[in-house]
């Protein structure tokens, strides 16, 4: 018999088999009579697990709404595309710095009325965090997990070079001196350890100006990136390249790009002795180098009148425009925003809470030994947050590039800052003019 006679029937059976199996796998779950709320979140790993617990708790608490949480990468871009395609999720977990751009684009709905009805009041929150969600006097986002930053330093390396590990730097002058002592170089200038580098981890390259008392814009219509305080700040940034060699620093830093969440993180490996980091750093130290002898302290002050500078960082929850179930989505937000919900989430992620009040035991049971320091930082007189400006993503990219030019010493700080100013001012003018034309400013 012809062998090929079997081939086609066998192939047909295989194709049919695959078809029926895939049908089984992709079959939607039978209707359970609940409203399903689609929730997109940016977190992964333990941060996602912490929110998943809150979601599970909410789902158990009632029988009308089912929240389905999904982890999404590049959430700020993908959500926008989903909204424009009219298939948005019902709840989205964004970064605080996205709120203005989303609000100006009408991509998220206002929450003022819903919060009023639900009794969610701004007085209950730490002002710096509540304000992140407010754009042009309207509320568009509610806080989920907040953070502040502080100086993290390696006590072991302090001891190694004869510094007192209980006396971290309090001023930028002390920071510079200690950084010099902690830096190790080979005779050929090759850097093998830095005491401190302003570009590590490089997430807040825009914050050095505000740490020196500078502003990124006047809050209305003027970009002020080249103000004297900012020039002073980036002159300080450049002095590390002047002292240790721009090329040597670049080469050293290139070795640990994208290693934050790994055992190659330069702070874990002892390649950098001090760095600015957020409250979350504790989790990563525990995971990748629990033996590390480290401590956190308020970040040194650049000037005596600017004590305890810190970056206000916040993740937020929003309801996208066009969400199919906004009411049910808000029911979930209401649950998260209770003291119990936020503490469950923030303790799960080992962060601070955005609420003024904390339950008895929250601090005592918190695993981060420096949690009080991070809570106190949220009330610091020298806080800086991403400016509420709709062109912030582009502005931030420009600052990142200027930072690179400054550290590479291809431009003077003044030149680099002037260039950013000259580039961003017309963009802001145009942005505001278009908002005005639409009657939205």
């Amino acid at each position, binding site marked *: 018999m012809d062998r090929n006679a079997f081939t086609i029937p066998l192939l047909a059976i295989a194709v049919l088999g695959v078809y029926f199996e895939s049908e089984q796998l992709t079959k939607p779950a039978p209707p359970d009579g609940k409203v399903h709320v689609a929730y997109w979140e940016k977190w992964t790993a333990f941060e996602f697990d912490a929110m998943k617990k809150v979601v599970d708790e909410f789902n158990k608490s009632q029988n009308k709404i089912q929240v389905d949480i999904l982890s999404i990468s590049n959430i700020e*871009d993908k959500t*926008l*595309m989903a*909204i*424009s395609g009219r298939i948005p999720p019902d709840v989205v977990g964004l970064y605080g710095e996205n709120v203005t*751009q989303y609000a100006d*684009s*009408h*991509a998220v709905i206002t929450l003022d009325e819903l919060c009023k009805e639900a009794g969610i009041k701004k007085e209950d929150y730490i002002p710096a965090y509540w304000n992140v969600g407010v754009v042009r006097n309207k509320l568009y986002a509610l806080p989920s997990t907040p953070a502040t930053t502080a100086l993290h330093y390696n006590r072991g390396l302090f001891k190694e070079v004869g510094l007192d590990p209980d006396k971290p730097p309090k001023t930028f002058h002390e920071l510079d001196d200690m950084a010099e002592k902690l830096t190790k170089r080979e005779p050929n200038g090759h850097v093998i350890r830095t005491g401190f580098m302003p570009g590590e981890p490089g997430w807040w390259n825009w914050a050095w100006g505000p740490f020196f008392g500078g502003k990124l814009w006047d809050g209305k219509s003027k970009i002020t990136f080249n103000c004297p305080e900012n020039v002073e700040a980036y002159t300080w940034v450049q002095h590390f390249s002047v002292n240790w060699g721009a*090329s040597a620093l*670049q*080469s*050293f*830093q*290139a*070795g*640990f*790009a994208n290693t934050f969440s790994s055992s190659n993180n330069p702070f874990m490996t002892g390649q950098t002795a001090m760095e600015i980091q957020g409250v979350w750093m504790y989790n990563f130290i525990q995971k990748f180098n629990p033996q590390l002898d480290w401590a956190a302290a308020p970040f040194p002050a650049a000037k005596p009148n600017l004590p305890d500078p810190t970056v206000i960082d916040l993740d937020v929850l929003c309801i996208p*425009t066009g969400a199919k179930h906004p009411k049910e989505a808000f029911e979930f937000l209401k649950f998260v925003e209770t003291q119990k919900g936020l503490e469950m989430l923030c303790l799960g992620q080992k962060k601070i809470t955005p609420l003024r009040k904390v339950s008895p035991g929250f601090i005592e049971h918190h695993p981060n030994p420096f949690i009080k320091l991070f809570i106190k930082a949220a009330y610091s007189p020298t806080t800086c947050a991403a400016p509420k400006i709709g*062109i912030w*993503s*582009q502005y931030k*990219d420009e600052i*990142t*590039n200027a930072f*690179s*030019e400054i550290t*590479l010493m*291809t431009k003077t700080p003044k030149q680099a800052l002037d260039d950013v100013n000259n*580039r961003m001012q017309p963009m802001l003018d145009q942005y505001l003019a*278009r908002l005005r*034309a*639409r009657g939205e400013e």
Partner: protein
Amino acid sequence: MKSISRRESWAGVSFASPWLLGFFIFLGYPLVASMYFSLCDYSVLKPPVFVGLDNYKQLLSDDLFKTALWNTLVYAFFALPAGMMTAVILAMLLNTKVKGMAAYRTFFFIPSLVPQVSLAILWKWVLDPEHGVLNPILAKLHIPGPNWLGEPHWAKVSLVIMGMWGVGNAMLIYLAGLQDVPTQLIEASELDGANSWQKTRHVTIPMISPVILFNLIMGIIGTLQVFTVPYIMFPGGAPAHSTYFYTEYLYDNAFRYHKMGYASAMGWIMFLMILGLTVFSLKMSEKHVHYQG
């Protein structure tokens, strides 16, 4: 007869309809729409507002646009000839009669199957100045390895080198072309006393010139649209925008800065640039490309 041909025409159109529908919905409509959006202030979420040629005028005075365009042209200027020459040389080597040739061909083709994202990560570890494998090898040869990823001019060189890694597809097309070169022509040139270089220069290259032209045009399109590898290896075009390419700026405008109108204008300029270069290549080819028969 007439009705049969009409029926056949309908049948032809019907059979082609899935492709035609796809073409008009997924290519034709976006093309026309992007032309319109390029004349609008359009953030995707709000209705487009007609602004005439504002986006084009603004592009002319946009320094970052000029930087991205310059970076792209410099990259294409070096990567295109480097890639083409590598592919031709490899194809010629793989066209010789050596034992185990199938294995060699597979070996040289495999890198082009590596996904771009994996390629970017792989090369990052090869070129890393501190922990990479290339600089220690250079050090053994007493050559000081540069900071491939951190210094503006070396970053572009890195990308050109990486571009040569993925020449497998072009190489395969050249190989097919080389195998099509009539042996009688080679033999005739041998009888005339031609040496290896003369045979290559006066017989092989003219005979594969249509293939070279095809790869040149594909190369122009590919190098001017370089995106994935620099996007992953050098976020934001670091260091100091030295690796910030045209398509990255277009992507950022469209999806990160929500300036879809501005991005559409950039897309049209890129389209016209590629069209111009392709027409120029075809015109130039009239003198240099020889078609058999």
